[in-house]
């Protein structure tokens, strides 16, 4: 299955109820949007970007809008074409649908709200504007989205396998902490490609930046987060291992109120 546009509101528990590929496939069509994304910059796109995006991302997409200076994390600088949340392989540009999804879903734990307050047409219209800020889109095309293998069920054994990967094979805890709080020994040293300190994700919050479904989390391990120290594990881990790791980090989510 190729995840295309992923307006995926399917949460973890719903995902964990998935018992097999057949059922998964039956959910997938719900996530596909029929939004028409323009290929050229339009007046609507320019206006929408100027009014709603440029205050943070800057008029030229450098991530230096007037509101940016006090923000942490900093708004994305679009000029490098480095997009975190993609369905495409590590280092690739995102698809239009990937960008549309981030605009619509927002980025939890940041000031990037879900811009569903705008019409679908408005949201789609800013995509060529964002792409116009980076030469990368002129010289390259996004690679084809990665293939999502058949998901496992989140059994105890799968989670246990994920834990081993987290703790021993990849040593994820060095950044993300033993309990997944984003407080590992190397956490403070992390920087993104733009030179800003970047906090490893705190899994206990449950607000996964690229989306809360198992497939969303799986995709982060598969594609990596461009522009950040978080690499892709498409090569190091088998498809199955990535699902195990997915379920393990999702098991680290602490219900609201029990957090320290």
């Amino acid at each position: 299955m190729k995840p295309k546009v992923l307006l995926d509101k399917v949460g973890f528990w719903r995902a964990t109820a998935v018992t097999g590929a057949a059922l998964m496939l039956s959910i997938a069509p719900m996530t596909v949007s029929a939004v028409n994304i323009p290929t050229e910059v339009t007046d609507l796109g320019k206006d929408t970007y100027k009014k709603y995006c440029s205050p943070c991302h800057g008029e030229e997409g450098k991530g230096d809008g007037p509101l940016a200076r006090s923000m942490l994390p900093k708004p994305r600088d679009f000029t490098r074409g480095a997009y975190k949340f993609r369905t495409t392989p590590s280092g690739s540009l995102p698809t239009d649908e990937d960008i549309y999804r981030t605009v619509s879903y927002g980025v939890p734990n940041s000031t990037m709200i879900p811009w569903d307050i705008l019409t679908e047409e408005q949201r789609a219209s800013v995509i060529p504007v964002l792409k116009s800020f980076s030469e990368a889109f002129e010289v390259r095309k996004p690679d084809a989205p990665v293939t999502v293998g058949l998901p496992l069920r989140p059994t105890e054994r799968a989670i246990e396998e994920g834990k081993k990967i987290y703790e021993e094979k990849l040593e994820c805890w060095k950044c993300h902490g033993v309990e997944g709080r984003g407080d590992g020994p190397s956490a403070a040293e992390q920087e993104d490609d733009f030179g800003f300190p970047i906090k490893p994700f705190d899994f206990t919050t449950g607000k996964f930046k690229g989306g809360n479904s198992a497939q969303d989390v799986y995709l982060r391990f598969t594609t990596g987060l461009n522009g950040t120290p978080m690499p892709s594990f498409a090569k190091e881990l088998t498809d199955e291992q990535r699902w195990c790791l997915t379920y393990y980090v999702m098991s680290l989510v602490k219900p609201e109120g029990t957090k320290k």
Partner: protein
Amino acid sequence: MKKFGIGLCLSAMLFTSVAWAAEQPLKKETPPDLYEGTPDWYRATYKDNVGLREGSGPFKDYFKPQMLDMYWQPNRHYEPMKNLDHSIFIEKERRDLCVTCHEEATPGVVSDWRSSGHKNPKSSPYLSARTAEIEKRTNRILNEVHCFDCHADTKTKQIRMPTGEVCGECHRPQFDDFLREREMGRPNHIQSWEANTIVPWYAEAARRGYLYGQHGCDLCHSGAEKCDVCHTRHKFSAAEGRQPEACITCHMGPDHPDAESYGESKHGVIYHKEEEHFDFTRPLSEVRPGKDYRTPTCQFCHMYEKHGRFIHNPVMKGIWRMGTVPPKNLEYTSSLKDYPYGIKIIADKIDIYSEENVAKRSYWLEVCAKCHSDRFADTYLKSLDEFMFQAHTLADRAQKIVEDLIADGYLYPSAADRDPYPLSDGIEKQLSPEFLGEPIYNAFKTLKGKFPVVGPILGVYGMFLQQQDNPSNIENMYNRLWFWYKLQGYKGTAHVQQDVSWWWGQAPMMMEFTKIQSEAARLRREGRIEKASLTK
């Protein structure tokens, strides 16, 4: 102990202490208006929004406001942010997005709100009862008071900076109590912005390039329209407003050392030693002296109105007020006998023994009687009166020395040879005999401010603006005597802090007095020598 001074202020927080007020029948249905009953010119210069284009008050054309004034005096000066147009969020009433973004953009704000009574207005039986009253009064169901409710101006579709009027939509009894400060006249909180900008030296300093030097003035005087002066945003806690610390950021320093005098008094020391035993969640009207509070707080004394009732403003019982206005009950030798010199916008002398003030004194005794015998408390307060009479007498003698020096032509540099009184041109142009009285107005008109102004209250300009040779050394000395040391002695005595009373008050007052005497003698001697040399 008494006086105007340490005070909690403003209305607004959640469910205040003034339980009795909530039982009063609804007085009015008109929207809350902080400027209710004020004349048109007043509203036009203090309330009507001009953004940052012009100042406020009668001298508004002589200065532009400081940038921060949009937050301090929002009705007049607030401008919605230009960087990000929030109208779409208001039009679509997307309450969820306020929190989603601001949880990250300004997490402290959201965290405060989450722990406030606004987020959970029915989280305790007490809050539920107060919320039920508000629901009844406003005909709304209040399960959550949200960012949107206070910050969204649904008419203009812009973000607004809430004033007490916004708070008053729900907290009407507290708002109405606060509004009553106007009955007492200045000094009070509700007219604090007026007090800040109506004085001619504010505008004069601004046009001489000192506008931002007055940052400190603006910060304290921003208590006119805003409730978060005492109930800090975004918790807006009633309990916080009941703590003495709520008052001290403003009520300190050389002209009203309330924090210092209360804080180091036995009252204050016991509070600090035993503060964990104080139950500030209790409304003032339900505080059990000795159990909930072992000593009084600023709020407990100053917000006690009378007969067991508390009011949501701290000025109603004030007799000596800030301590600057001379009492009627003395024979003056200086021009203070003519105070306030026919000026209509300054309060008359205080009659300490007027029917109203005798009644107020009995209300003070009601408070003191929680812990002190009537005789002890009465004796203490009478001693305060005596201290004040003696202090005003000393000030009168000092003023006489300065005035005689001026009358005899020995002031140096003379008024003719120095900068005029602040903003004299503006005073002549913007004010009229109606405000200033005929004689004072005419003095400005004919002499163009080239005359000395000494003593309460217009002579205080030297504390706020020093110009070319104006005021002179001896005038500065006198300012320190009556505006600093007299007031410090007053607060030290009123708040039972012996060291403040003596070493910050009486002792320097006397030292300054003898300095004034010798400075006057020196000026006279030099003047005589100069005259003699000229006649040779």
